Every structure is written in C-alpha cells, then in structure tokens.
C-alpha cells in the first residue's frame, strides 16, 4: 500500500526543517530539529520521526540538500582524477586566464584535482573530423594508476568531444571496465557544450562530488528503508526542479544550490497562490543577503554560476545574487570619514556585539536592537537567553556616533539605511537593471532577519509591497514539496542558420526531448502534465555572446521561423537589429518539466484567528525616520484573516520578527501571509 504523506526536508547548517503534508486530510505540520554534522541523514530521519509514526504511510520524500554546496565551499569532495587529451592536462588549473579581483594581484587558486592526478592519453579529434585514434589499453592503464594512487572518482574529458564524442565514449567505456566504483564521469555526458574549461570544470566538480553526495544519499536511503519507507525519494536541483535519487547520484553537480533553490521555489508557489506574479525573494542570513527574481511566475535561471573563484558550474541554476549584507555585517567609518557596512561580517559566531561572544564592532543586528526593533528578551533561534543592549549601544557610540557626530539612534539608523541601500542595490540589480519595474514586484523575506528590513525596501526601491509567508523559517522545506520535476539538456550546434536543415534539427530536438522525458517520468511521480521547452542560443556571425531564443515545435521549424524568433529576441534585448549580418545557432537546449499538482496554500490560513486587539502583547519604543515612536507589539500567528495592523508595529513569532515601518500597513491574507503596503490615507 502506498501512503498519502508527502514530506519536504531542508537540511541547513544549524537546523533541519521538516514539512509534512498529508494528502488525505490536507493538513500540514512542520518541525525543526538540530542538524547532525558529519552525517546529516541522522537528523533527517529523526526529524521525520517526530511527525510520522509509520514510514510506510509516506509516499514521497523530497530533499533540498547542502551536502554538495558545503563539499564545494569547504573543498571536501572525494579525491578525483582526470584523464584527458595529450597536451591539455592543465586546462582546469589555467581556467580562462582570469583573476578573482580586478584590483590587487593577490589572487590564489587551488584546483580540486591536483596536477599529478591529471593524466594524459594520446588522443585528439577536431570538431569536424577525426585526427588521432585512441588506444583503450593506454586509457585502462592510466585509470588503474589513478585508482591505485587513491582516487575515488574520475572524470574523462577530451578536447572537442562536444562535437565529436566517439573517442571520449570509447575511453569512458574502458575506464568503467576497470574502475573499482561507479564514480566515473564523462564530460560530454554532463555537458556536450563548446568551451573546454567550463565543460571540464562542471564535469570535474560532478566527479568530485560523487563520492560525497552518492554515499550520503545511500545512507539516507538505507535509513529510510530501515524505517519501512517504500515511497520515492526525490532531490531538489539547483534549477528548482526535482530529480530521482538515482539521477542525483549520477549528476550530483546539479545539487550545488539545491537548498537555496528550494526556498525560491517555495516563494514562487506562495506568491502565485496569493495572486502575486512578480516577487523578489530575500533571504537574509548572518553574513549575506540572497536575492532572486520571480517574474511572471517563473524564477530566473542563470546558465552558469561560479561557486567560488575558478569553480565554474555550467548548468542552469536559479539565479541567486548574493551580497555581503547580513545581520552580522560590521559597520565602520573609513579613512575618508565615509560610513561603510559589510562585507566584513561577525557571522553568527562571535556574531553581533549584543550576543556577548567577544565581538566589539557594531553590526546591523546591533543597530536593529538599539532602535527597539528586536526583542532583547526573546532572541530568535533559541541559542541565547537574552541580548546585551548596553554593549551594542556602546559599540555604536565609539565606532560610529562619535566619529560622525550623530546620536546613537541616528548612527544606528544610518547603519540600517546603508545596509538597506545595499540590499536595495542587490534588488535593483536583479530587477530594474534587467528592465523590470520594481513597483510591480513584492519583496518576499525569508530566513530570520529579512522581515525587519522589508519596509525600508518598499520605500527605497519603490517595490509595490512585501509578502511575508506564514512560516518564513521553513520556506525551503515547503519548496521541496511544491517543486516540479525538471531536466535540462544542451547540445552545441555551432552552424550558420542558413546551413541548417530545419527538418533534421526538429527531429533531433524531439528525439532528445523523448529521452529526457523518460528520465523525468522514471521516478514514478504523478504529474498533472508534462511541458517541453525548446530554446536556441543564437548570435550574429562575429559575436561571442548569445541571446536565448525560444521556439515552438508544435509547428514545423523553418529557417525563416527561426530567423524571425531570433529577430524578436534580439530586438527585445538590445533595441536594434543589424541587417545583412548572417546569424549562427550555437546551441540548442531542451527542457522537460513534469508539473506536480498545485499545492493548496490555504492550508496555512490561520484557524480560529483573533482580532488584532486580542493579539496585542504590549508596546515598545522604536526609533524610525529620525524620531522615537511607540510601536504596538503583536503575536503574529494568532491574527485572523483580514486583520490589518498599522505601523509602527512589531509582529513577533518564534522564527522571525516583522517590523511594520511608520506609514506602512500590514494585512493578513487568506493564506496566512502578511501583505505589507504603504498605508492608504483617506
């Protein structure tokens, strides 16, 4: 008997969040347990056990994981070897001849595969024709040497194999016949796209992650099996879609941003239910502020992301812009007397001055505290008993107020204004800078600190409103439950449009889509429908950057229809067409999406909510817009649907604090979200 429970699990650095959805009753439950460092699968299983007695009742577990992310950032993947074309073993280390910072030549780079583990074989193909043939015996010998040296995983990468993969295929077969584990990555199986460094980097990181992510997923499966779980286990990809656990073991590089992507997907779903097509998700942590844009109901995808300097992953990932402005960002006055905030951060340990753990330089959280926006007696997260207001005040006085001749409150507000301006800048970067009108967007804060700043973002960027989800702290776990299944494929074409046989190309696209659809449906998930998307990367002859050109395959492709699609995409991007210059098709991209049934967000609607006056818990003096105000305090989760709170007000709940600035008003919508807008004065 298959169960009716769907579970989303997001494992973060501190907490593991579990989201339980019972399809029979429509009820949802959430829980939080401490993450178990070392083996995250323990905390994972414990979290589920808190809410589910019989694992046989679970139909699906969907997981947003940071195991891959952390392994990349901390350089803790498996020892990996590379087998490559003679003459090219340094491609990974030479990168695209770049440096991490424009100014100051002090960069360093240590590739994840050390030079002796990068070996060459006599092989060479050109994009058009064969040049030298490969000897499987030599490949096997090199593979054995790497395995004996202690490599757990291996990546096979040949120059020009994006166009001519025969040699690489033969070599991979040879390696697989002798490699002791299944951790063998073929670069063109990961990314058959032109540009050797980007392909090799992506494939190498895949191989590097395989021992870590695969074994983690194995442990997870075993742990779930032992509890009697018979359902399907799905993993969130960086592109915001989910994949089956076996696919994740083959393509672990696609989990590089799994956790954050789940958060954006949740934001997208919550917003769609609440009637918002356009949002900017804002995840504020201790050191950073992550922003992502959802326009017309769809999250923006970046074709390529650098996890760190020289660690390039070229697969579509949800575009997440990170800036160094978080609760722990340090405020200081520079040599020219200009106030700066971040990117230097006190993090969560020692953290802000008010934590009392040794930091003496004021942070954004300290500013929020002395302005009365945070309750010193009830710090969120549950790690500390209370916050030290006096210490925060002293730090702001000596490091900012005294130097700028401002009062402590003015100085604290200046810190917040500057932090807000940085966040506003990040939001502008993903919205205005890309031609979107911010007044049509709502900010959606999640994480612990974001909701303190949303009011300012409405005012600074001119955002239309803010939408605060009912449980900002478990957004990513919810995202796991609502995400669709998705697979992206790419293939380099690199031909002039006039040289292309459109009928053959259509046929190829459909064939690739069919194979991809089999991967999507293989996990047994039920879908409402399957979508297939087709796109070309195209450019004028002579250009090197492409524009994405969507095409519709329901009608037969012709050269003219492709040209027309290019013209309209190019014009939309740059404003003017360049007549008389031939057009080239660089790549085609195929995406297959299995749409999951829409999740009913009304399960979050407060039941037995109370009128606002009954939720009032007192008042606190806050400083805003250069003056003291008396802000009313509310217990947010008790508020009934339709209740309106006029700022200045502070709404408290266990996982976040919401500040409603003077001049703003907040309303509880039918899904339990809080909608904050400029107060309409009659």
């Amino acid at each position, binding site marked *: 008997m298959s169960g009716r429970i769907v579970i989303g699990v997001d494992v973060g650095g501190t907490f593991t969040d579990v989201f339980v959805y019972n399809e029979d009753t429509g009820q949802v439950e959430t829980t939080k347990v401490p993450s178990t460092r070392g083996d995250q699968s323990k905390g994972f299983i414990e979290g589920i056990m808190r809410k589910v007695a019989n694992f046989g009742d679970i139909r699906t577990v969907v997981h947003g994981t940071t195991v891959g992310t952390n392994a990349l950032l901390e350089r803790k993947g498996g020892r990996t070897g590379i087998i490559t074309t003679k*003459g*090219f073993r*340094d491609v990974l*280390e*030479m*990168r*695209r*001849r*770049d*440096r991490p*910072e*424009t*100014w*100051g*030549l*002090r*960069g*360093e*780079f240590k590739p994840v595969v*050390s*030079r*002796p583990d990068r070996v060459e074989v006599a092989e*060479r193909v*050109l*994009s058009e024709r064969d040049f030298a043939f490969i000897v499987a015996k030599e490949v096997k010998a090199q593979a054995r040497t790497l395995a004996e040296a202690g490599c757990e995983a291996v990546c096979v990468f040949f*120059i*020009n194999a*994006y*166009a001519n993969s025969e040699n690489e295929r033969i070599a991979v077969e040879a390696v697989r016949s002798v490699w002791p584990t299944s951790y063998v990555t073929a670069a063109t199986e990961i990314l058959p796209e*032109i*540009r*050797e*460094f*980007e392909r090799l980097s992506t494939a190498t990181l895949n191989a590097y992650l395989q021992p870590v992510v695969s074994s983690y997923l194995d442990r997870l499966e075993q742990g779930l099996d032992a509890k009697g779980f018979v359902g399907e286990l799905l993993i969130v990809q960086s592109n915001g879609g989910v994949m089956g656990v076996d696919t994740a073991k083959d393509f672990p590089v696609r989990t590089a941003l799994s956790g954050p992507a789940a958060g954006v997907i949740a934001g997208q779903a919550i917003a769609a239910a609440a009637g918002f097509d356009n949002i900017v998700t804002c995840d504020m942590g201790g050191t950073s502020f992550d922003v992502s844009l959802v326009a017309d109901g769809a999250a923006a995808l970046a074709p390529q992301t650098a996890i760190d300097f020289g660690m390039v992953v070229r697969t579509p990932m949800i575009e997440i812009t990170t800036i160094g402005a978080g609760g722990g960002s340090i405020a200081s006055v*520079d*040599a*020219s*007397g*200009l*106030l700066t905030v971040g990117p230097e951060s006190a993090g969560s340990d020692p953290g802000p001055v008010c934590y009392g753990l040794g930091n003496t330089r004021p942070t954004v959280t300290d500013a929020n505290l002395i302005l009365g926006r945070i309750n010193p007696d009830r710090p969120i997260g549950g790690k500390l008993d209370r916050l030290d207001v006096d210490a925060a005040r002293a730090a702001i006085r000596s490091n900012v107020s005294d130097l700028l001749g401002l009062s402590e409150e003015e100085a604290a507000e*200046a810190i917040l*204004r*500057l932090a807000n*301006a940085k966040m506003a*800048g990040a939001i502008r*970067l993903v919205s205005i*800078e890309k031609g979107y009108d911010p007044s049509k967007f709502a900010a959606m804060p999640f994480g612990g600190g974001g909701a303190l700043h949303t009011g300012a973002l409405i005012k600074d960027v001119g955002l239309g409103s803010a939408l605060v989800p009912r449980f900002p702290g478990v957004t990513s776990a919810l995202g796991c439950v609502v995400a669709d299944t998705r697979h992206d494929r790419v293939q380099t074409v*690199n031909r002039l449009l006039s040289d292309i046989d459109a009928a053959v190309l259509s046929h190829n696209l459909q064939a690739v889509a069919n194979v991809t659809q089999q991967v999507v449906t293989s996990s047994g998930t039920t879908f409402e429908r399957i979508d297939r998307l087709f796109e070309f990367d195209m450019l*004028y*002859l*002579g*250009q*090197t*950057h492409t524009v994405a050109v969507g095409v519709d395959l329901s009608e037969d492709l012709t050269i003219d229809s492709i040209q027309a699609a290019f013209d309209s995409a190019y014009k939309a*991007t*740059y*404003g*003017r067409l*360049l007549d*008389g210059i031939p057009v080239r098709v660089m790549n085609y991209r195929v995406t297959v999406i299995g749409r999951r049934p829409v999740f009913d967000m009304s399960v979050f609607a407060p039941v037995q909510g109370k009128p606002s006056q009954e939720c009032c818990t007192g008042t606190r003096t806050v400083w805003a817009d250069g003056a003291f105000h008396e802000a009313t305090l509310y217990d947010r989760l008790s508020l009934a649907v339709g209740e309106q709170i006029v700022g200045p007000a502070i709404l408290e709940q266990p996982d976040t604090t919401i500040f409603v600035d003077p001049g703003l008003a907040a309303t509880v919508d039918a899904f339990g979200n809080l909608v904050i807008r400029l107060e309409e004065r009659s």
Partner: protein
Amino acid sequence: MEIDPVTLAILKGRFEQIADEMDATLFRSAFNPIIAEAHDASHGLYDAENGDTLVQGKSGLPIFVGVMAFAVKAVIRKATAQGGVNEGDMWIFNDPYDGGTHLSDFRLVKPVFRDGKVFCYLASVGHWHDVGGNVPGNYNPAATECFQEGMLIPPVKLYDGGEFRQDVVDILSANSRQPLSLYGDLNGQINAMDLGEKRLNALLDEYGAPVARGALVALKDRAATMMRAQISNLPSGTISAEDWLDNDGIDDVPLKVALDLTIDGDKMILDFTRSSPACRGPVNISRSTTIAACYVALKHVFGEVPANAGVLEPVEFRIDEDSLLSVKAPKPVGGYTETILRLIDVVFQAIAQVAPKSAMACAYGTINALSLAGHRPNGARWVMFSFFGGGHGAHGTGDGLNHGNAPISTATIPPLEILEAAYPIRFTKWALRPDSGGIGYYRGGLGAIYEISLLDKEADVFLFGERGKVPPRGIVGGGDAATNRFYYEQSDGEHTPPMVSKMVGIHLERGQHVRLETPGGGGYGDALTRSPEMVLSDVVQGYVSEDAARSDFGVVFTDAGIVEHAATITLRKERTV
C-alpha cells in the same frame, strides 16, 4: 551643496551601477572577442567643465579608468573651438596623441543636458578588431609612423544634434578589413551610451541635479582625502626603480623606464625624467597614457581608493616632452600595452622598497598579441588574434597566481575550442610552464606554453610581445621569472625571432607550428627561506623541477622523494655564505 553621508553612499552606488550597466551592455552585444571576451572597453561619467573622471565602471579595462578623462577633455576643447556642444551631439575619435591610447581604441563622448546646461559627459571606449594599417589586428611591431598602424580619426560628430551621420560610419567601414565587426561594435557602444543616458536621467529626475552634482563633488574630495591618507602611511623620502623594454621592434636596443618616487607627507611625486627618449618603433606612449598607467598601478597597491579623479589630486607627475612616455604624432604607439605594463612594474618595485608587506612582485609583463592570418578557399580573409596569459608576481601574503591576466586588464582568454572551430588551426599544447615563476620565500605564478599548428595550406604570423630579454623582476630578494620565448617552425626546424618577441610576416605552411612560452611572475623574499615542505609540494605538482629545488631553493630530497632536512640545512647554509 552639502550632501548627508547616507545619501552620498547611496548615490555612489547608483552612479557606479550606471557605468557598470553600460559596460555589461557593450560586452554582451559587441562583435569582436577583444571586447566581448577580453573586456577591452570602458564606460564612465565625466565632469561637464574639465572632463575629470567622476565615476567609472568596475568591469571595464582598468587602464581606461585613468585615460578616459583625457578623451573627454579633448572633445571639450574641440567643441569649444567650434562654438560649444549641443543637445543630441555625440563625438567619435581614436586620436592616440590627444586623449587616446592606440588607434584600435575608438571613443564615443556625449554630453547629457539638464535644464539647458551640460550636467556631465558620458563616454564609451572599445578596442575594435581592425582599423586598417599594415597588419591585420593592428599590432604592427615594424611600424615607424602611426599611419602604418591604422586610420587616425580626430574628434568628429557621429550624431549632430540628434542626427545620425551615416557618412562618418561609411568612412570608418571603408578603412577596415572587418567592416561588419566594426559596425557591430559601434552599435554596441551606442546601445551602451543610450542606456547610460536613460539611467542617468532617471537618477536626476529622482534626486535633482544639485544633489547629484553635490554628491559627485563630495565623492571626488573623499577620494583625494583617502589617497592622501594612504600616502601619509608611507615613509617620506625618494626611492628609485628602473626596468627595461627589450627593444622597440625596429632597433634592437633596450629602452629604460625609470621612476624616482618621492613621498612628501601626504603628497607623491612620480618623476620619470630619467627614462629613454622617444623611439622609432611602436612602444611609445602619450603623456595621458603614462598618467593612466600610474593610476592603475597605485590602485593595485591601494585597492580601496575609489575610481575618480580625486585619486590623482595629491600626485604630481614629471615626464619629459617627446620622451618614450610623452610622445607626439606621428611616432607609432601601437604597442602601448607593453610600455604601460613596464610602468606598473617600476611602481611595484618602488613601493616594495617602502611598503614590502603590501607590495607585489612584477607580473609576466607582456600581452603577447599573436595573430595568424590567411585566406579561406573562397578567398575570404581569416585572422585569428588573441592575447596570451602568464604568471602573477608573488606578494607579501603568498605565491603568485598561475596563468593570470595582465594587470592592465580583466580579460579572459577565448576557449581554444572556439578558436579551433573558427579558424584552420589546432592547438597541440595548452599547459603550465614549469620553473617559470621567480623563486622566493613566496614563488611567482607560472606562465604557460601554447603550441599551435596550421591546418590550412599557408598563413602569416605576427607577434607583438616583450620580456624576451629582461625578465619580470622579483622583489624583497625574490628571483626573476623566466623570460618570454617564441618559436616558429620552418622546413629546416624551429627558429626564434631576432627581436625575440616581436616579428611580422612569418610564413607558415600546413603542419608547421608556433610555440609561445610566457613568463611567470617575479618571486618575493629569499628562496633559501621557503619552507622545504612547500618546495616539495611544488616538485610533486611539477611547478618546480627537482633540479631547481636543489639549485635554487637549496632543498635536498631522499630517493623516496621526502625532504632530507639535515642535508637541506647544510646546503642552504653553504648557499647563504
């Protein structure tokens, strides 16, 4: 007008975003890879009265950060002579002697009006693929006059009161081997200017011209204050550094770049009067380019100072007229990149003497502009043109970066798969070059080896490089890096050019190859004090040969490949004496 510090910080970010977005627009829509991939372009906002740099994009070519102000000044001078600028005007030019760099760099300059007056100028510069001259791609090491390097266009109007002048574009196109590429790049620059004007107008609508102007003035003042503070941290006195260019491509004699740097309280004097006079070949530069190069060097050393004219306020320049570093028309300037790299090297070497902790050893110091050109079966011309990388210098906190880009640029190298798909060539090697980094307590980064063979029937090869004779220097006792090497194959075997890194018209036939071995970066500190374990690691990685580990670093290994400590100590003692 006094601007409060918070508004100032916010406006600083807004202005920078405008310039950054102009950069991004051109990079994405440009036609030639030198702009699209190598980012050899720049955008900014400039003072309405004197053309001083107000704000500059962060992603453009660093060298342009300083030099663009001179371009705007040149336009202001010309427009004033013609009765002033009008709304809707846009100027175009590439004169290297008056606000330019070399002929490949085309500039657009446009006034933005507010309330009937010029609020500021916007400018765009980009390196075009081909602007005529004797050599495809315009790096002509044999040029003795600028007329052999390409067309020279003084400031003329591309838009006259909003009217686009197609006749100007026709003249430009007719003088290029790559007219479509030129047309595409020009359009990309116009896109960037349009976007910049739109964004700037939105900002002025929101804040008003007086607040915006007040902020720009305050930002300049603050940059000057910050630079003064940085200079004050250095001990007063005069220090000197000298470095050399191999030759000018015409006469095989070295050319001196000498700096006497004086710190006087919060002021700095950069005196180059001991440098060589102007030369016959194309490594001369204009005075404005010299100043811009020093700005780049100072910004590498003092990373925090902002990108506006205030930075140069406390700095005085002494440069002789008609010298190598202040040349007049028509002396050739096509290889300006090599000379400005040497300027950066002497500033680094001087700073190392007074502030070793924040200093960096010299980077590889040459852009190695290499082109292979031929004709396709249908008669069409093909030109493969690229710059190549090398090692960065070691510095007070670590080893130099292997295979980095030049200090004057943030360029990336094109993927070899793109080059092979586009041109009848095949790379046979693309690798790090062992033992090329300067030795030291910290080791210089490694240069690279690139080997290319010809698949077509025949082609001509042109190279413009440096550091073939005088290696990139180490600092604080660190060793020099390996010199640049270039080999070309002929029927009787491999040859090297008489000028080492400069040559025109090398004729290759099918199957013959060229090989470039680029310098690493200089070392930092005494190599005999480098940790033996780090030396061992370098040997294991193949960065340093076992011979060099022993002879240069004084480290002895056992047959099993581990450090023999007693023997190492003894050897190092002998070497120190």
